[in-house]
């Protein structure tokens, strides 16, 4: 028995010395990371809807905030959700596809101006689109004078603006990943008679699915998070807004005003994104780093 208890005791000692403090730190950091989320949930179910009286476990629990959110005709929550989904999904898909096409040729082909293109993309990547928000507004305004559906207050121009930023957002990361796919595979395919497009769709794309997942997820969330350009292009007309811009209307100006419906909506908008993120997170660590290391 003595021989068995010895490693147990030792293990416990190691556990105290090397593991316990990690758990303690982990709980503190987890508390920081979850802090706003926890209070968002708490406030969403607190029927009093006041910041000043809010408790972690609300005294008066109920779904009043949700019914108030759904019944507000001037602030149509579900229309906002649909708008957000349309814009974010279309633009994220566009960013991924356009970025993948460009990255393929930058990774696999050697041509004049390749280095210049790569450098330019790297520099463009540094300049966020929101620096030119004023001029984007003017340009979309001009669009709208000729084609109404491309004008202010419509989703198509917003999708085009975000989707059009593809080259500056994803290309380097995708190229880095494509570089890791051995070129012997496509050389073999070339000998078997496959053209460049076939190689792209049948070899590169299937192998790069994890990085596509990461990139479209990051694009999707990036677009949902965008505030300035979205609000400038879609305007502040109730029907056109996205969730993020729309929900802000509940607490615009004075804080605490309509805090309840705001948190209820924020919670509903957060859950699907959070779930998607957690579901796909195993791709994230590898994807984020693989893009940068193999530059």
């Amino acid at each position, binding site marked *: 028995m003595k021989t068995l208890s010895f490693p147990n005791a030792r293990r416990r000692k190691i556990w105290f010395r090397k593991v316990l403090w990690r758990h303690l730190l982990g709980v503190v950091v987890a508390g920081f990371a979850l802090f706003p989320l926890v209070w968002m949930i708490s406030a969403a179910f607190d029927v009093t809807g006041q910041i000043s009286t809010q408790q972690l476990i609300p005294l008066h629990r109920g779904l009043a905030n949700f019914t108030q959110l759904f019944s507000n005709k001037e602030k149509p929550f579900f229309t906002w959700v649909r708008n957000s989904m349309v814009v974010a999904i279309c633009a994220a898909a566009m960013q991924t596809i356009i970025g993948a*096409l460009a990255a393929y040729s930058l990774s696999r082909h050697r041509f004049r101006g390749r280095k210049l293109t790569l450098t330019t993309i790297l*520099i463009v990547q540094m300049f966020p689109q929101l*620096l030119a928000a004023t*001029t984007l507004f003017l340009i979309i305004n001009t669009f709208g004078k000729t084609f109404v559906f491309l004008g202010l207050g419509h989703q198509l121009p917003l999708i085009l603006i975000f989707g*059009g930023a593809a080259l500056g957002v994803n290309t380097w990361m995708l190229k880095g990943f494509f570089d890791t796919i051995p070129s012997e595979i496509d050389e073999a395919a070339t000998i078997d008679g496959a053209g460049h497009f076939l190689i792209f769709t049948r070899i590169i794309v299937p192998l790069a699915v994890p990085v596509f997942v990461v990139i479209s997820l990051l694009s999707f969330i990036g677009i949902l998070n965008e505030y300035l350009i979205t609000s400038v292009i879609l305007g502040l007309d109730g029907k056109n807004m996205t969730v993020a811009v729309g929900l802000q209307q509940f607490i615009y100006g004075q804080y605490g005003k309509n805090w309840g419906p705001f948190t209820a909506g924020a919670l509903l908008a957060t859950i699907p994104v959070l779930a998607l993120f957690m579901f796909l997170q195993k791709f994230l660590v590898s994807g984020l780093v693989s893009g940068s290391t193999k530059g």
Partner: protein
Amino acid sequence: MKVRVSRGTLLKYALTYSIALSLFYVGVRFLQSRAWFLGVFFICSAGILIYLYTFHKKVPAKYLVPGVLFLVLFQIYPSFYSGYVAFTNDSNGHEISKTQAISTIIENSKVPITNAGPVTFRAAIENSSKKLFLIFEYPKDSWWVGNSSSLEQLQVSQIVKSSDSSIEKVHGFRLLNSNETEAVSGDLGDIQVKLKSGLVLQAQDLQTLQVSKPSLVYFPAKDELVNVESGVRYHPNNNGQMVSQAGEALYPGWKTTVGWRNFTSIIHNADIRHPLLKVLAWTFLNAIILIALSFLMGLCLALIFNSPLLYSRRIYRTIFIVPMAIPSVLSVLVWSGLFTAQTGVIDRIFHISTPWLTDSLWARIAVLIVELWVTFPYMFLICTGAIQAIPNEIIEAAEIDGASPLKVFGLIKLPLVMRTVAPLLVASGAMALNNFGVIYLLTGGGPTFPNTNGNAGATDILISYTYKLAFNSQEGSNYGLASALSILNFILIGILSVYGLRRMKTMEGVN
């Protein structure tokens, strides 16, 4: 050689040509509405698409062109356009063209003619066009029918008069009775009839017209406005405004290029320079502190929670990246509620009363806390990835050679992690310089500096100050100055990106 056309090829041509055709159509429509750049751009795009996808040459370009076209339209063109606006005086009071400005000035200079006597009118609808017209007699015995866009003299034969010499019927028109006239009074008020002599007639009530005359006349040949009564001459100055010799300016002005003035005013005008310097200092301070803190936090967490002894490290990792997964617009707004002074959750938990968001220092701390919350998960993830990418053999070899954990970290782990992460840090730095969302939604840039022109605040960074100048200013929007500041921002980021690029090149080279 046998030419074989597969279904894929047919689809390719169908797609290419239909897209090219629609781009061409869009381009032509833009040319028609005088949007020159857009028109030319779309037509050229159509041409490029047809050329590239028809011939079996230029394979790389086939893949690059979609991205490049979008890049030009939505990123490069707007940047250059901002560059143009920075050299204009585009601002409130200078938004329209010179022709529009001069006609507005003339319009505003009208003075009523008192000796004209009352001019009565009847409102009428033209039978053919259903448009509203005014029918009136001025001067005596000459009858007119007109609205803002047209004016015609009526022949005596067209008018049927009643016994008291008021008009009863006009050929081709339906006269409105007093009730109908009242119903269209809003439209009546908008109608201005201009006579050849320069006189303007406008309804002052439902029966009579006011006769007025612009006191300014424009002479295009000399490019001057002359006041016909006082004889004062107004000439355009270099800021898009008509000014007399005595210095009296006429409003509105127009949009014109002003050279470097927006840039020099940043330097010379103390009202702009003082807040701007503070804003610039905070922009850099904020970015540097944020990147340092979040990288340090991310690196430490990655090192601590990557330990194989910790069985629950997956769970911790999942929790730590939650902030990445919450739409930040929403989470920042939640933070803004939590930071409410006294009644907010944070103050109640810690039993403190902190002037978050209203005191300069505390507002800055609040901004940093929220920014750190938003960014540390990303740093944590990239550091974790970089640490996991270090081959175990290297570390084992070092340990066998007797290296202490500190030495393993300092001499092996850190340099290898930095190698991976440094380019991402530079990119994050560029992002942190333009962290508009957090600052705008959390503090709105406030609290504002006392005694400064404009509305710069303690937490304003360059991009949010620019946004305020462009859209949100109490003194009226100044797009020209805002664009000049954007250019400044472009230059700052440009320097940073060149630095980052050189760093990357020395480290791994662009292959």
